[in-house]
């Protein structure tokens, strides 16, 4: 059992969730209620990772982030480390590939909020920010919880794009799914079985926890 890989998988899932949520909420809100030119273009771009093979996305990211490319050099200058074969690199890849899983459920939840409920908030004197805090986000909460569950599960299981972008560097980019693959390649099927079981159990617990949280949050919804 590779505990370093397990910890790295958790770290990647955690940071992916933390960083993707604000972006996904803003994008989902825009796509749910915004009326502007190029909306379907943005929608298609967000959905693209859903249909694109992870290896294809990984290949493009690898090319773009390589210090040999202009963008890669710029990012290396900003982050201090090259984004290929490093944890920040697989985090960026994870954020991109998870975007549709985060945006879709939140967008559906925002779309389900009746427009006149927001208008009622405005007429009740609530600023757009207060309306978001007290009305929109609580109503979209089930969607946000679904997004967290999906992103968690998807990140823990992500393989292709991480292998392309990060390779398999212990402690840096070798997440649990890659450690399982390496074990099988080395005929250590015992290790692979234990790690698979751990990943399965953890994914189940994470999703169950998140759903319990959703129910609790809905039950005691109240104004602060």
């Amino acid at each position, binding site marked *: 059992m590779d505990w370093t890989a397990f910890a790295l998988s958790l770290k990647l899932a955690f940071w992916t969730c933390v960083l993707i949520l604000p972006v996904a909420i803003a994008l989902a809100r825009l796509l749910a209620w915004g009326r502007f030119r190029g909306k379907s273009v943005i929608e298609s771009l967000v959905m693209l990772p859903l249909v694109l093979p992870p290896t294809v996305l990984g290949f493009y990211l690898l090319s773009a982030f390589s210090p040999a490319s202009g963008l890669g050099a710029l990012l290396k200058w900003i982050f201090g480390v090259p984004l290929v074969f490093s944890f920040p690199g697989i985090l960026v890849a994870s954020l991109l590939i998870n975007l549709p899983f985060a945006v879709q459920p939140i967008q559906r939840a925002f779309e389900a909020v*009746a427009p*006149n409920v927001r*208008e*009622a*908030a405005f*007429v*009740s*004197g609530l600023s757009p920010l207060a309306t978001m805090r007290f*009305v929109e986000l609580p109503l979209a909460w089930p969607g946000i919880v679904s997004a967290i569950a999906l992103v968690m599960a998807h990140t823990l299981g992500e393989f292709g794009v991480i292998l392309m972008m990060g390779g398999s560097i212990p402690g840096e980019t070798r997440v649990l799914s890659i450690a399982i693959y390496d074990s099988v390649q080395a005929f250590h099927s015992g290790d692979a079985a234990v790690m698979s079981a751990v990943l399965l159990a953890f994914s189940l617990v994470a999703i169950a926890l998140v759903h319990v949280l959703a129910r609790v949050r809905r039950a005691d919804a109240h104004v602060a």
Partner: protein
Amino acid sequence: MSREPASLSVRLSQPGPIPLAVDFACGPGELLALVGPSGAGKTTVLCAVAGLYRPGAGRIVCGSDTWFDGAAPVMVPPQARAVGLVFQDYALFPHLSALDNVRLAMHHIAEPARTAAAQSLLQRVHLDGFEARTPDRLSGGQRQRVALARALARDPKVLLLDEPFSAVDRMTRESLKEELASLRRSLAIPIILVTHDLEEAQALADRISVIDRGRTLQTGTPDDVRLRPASGVVARLTGQTNIFAGVVERVSSEGKPGRIRWDGHSLDVSDTGAAKVGQRVTWLVPPDYVALADAAADGEGNVATGMLVEIVRLGERCVLAVQLGAGERLRFTMAARDLGGRGLQIRSALSLRLLPEGIHLMPSAR
């Protein structure tokens, strides 16, 4: 929290996409009903007053505050207008209890006064005991009361009600109407009620403004609008059925009635208004200004004879339709208990007297 009572004046115009040409005012403590068919633009007008819709041009002024001025341009956001709005489907916050629905609209008051004020508002609309319930656990009538309490929570300068009784059953509607009638006596602010139901407007409003296709056609007291509509269109929109065409034979002057020619009859008219002799006019007589007459009186004193072709029973009242010679139908009402007493039934021959003071002339269309 006392404040100078302010009146509201609204003037809106735009060619499209929703054509608007409305103009009305509402004084403090006054209830003005905007009446018109579905799609007449009533809700758009209400949204413009609330700040949720930006019209092309016009002015909305409440007291000394200009809320909208297309020329300046001024567009005060809804948050800064202090308007109470009861939405047609109430638009309550579905995740919040009745109390929190009201509290959320009271951000201008600090706790714990806010909760106490919200509670007393819920008491005022007879909802004590329901504070903790979310909208999905309230009946239609209770939701309407929460919406009303929330609309009053901001201590609004204007109260707007968008078809507030359309989503509840008839029994609830009657009791809510009575409650609104008593509540409004304690409110010294302009109240605008949007409805397609003229009876509702007649029962509750001080004045009625008739709107069709975004245009104000007439504003007046309920009696003005019902008995003296400005045009045949207003008469039809307000549910008048006894609308006919005639020619003026004589104009009224100094207490002497005028006269019109209609369908082979000469009818006395108490007031012919601005009509001229020989002018073609549209005229109406409200059903309550038509009475049964003796058969012998046909041809004299505003009496017309025909055959009873329809009886519609509305509880204690009936509406009867009589087919006259040339195919015109005249409707009138009578108490249901009189119907049996007089032995009236379909195909009975009837004579009807049209009361001269109820006949109202309007300019003929085109």
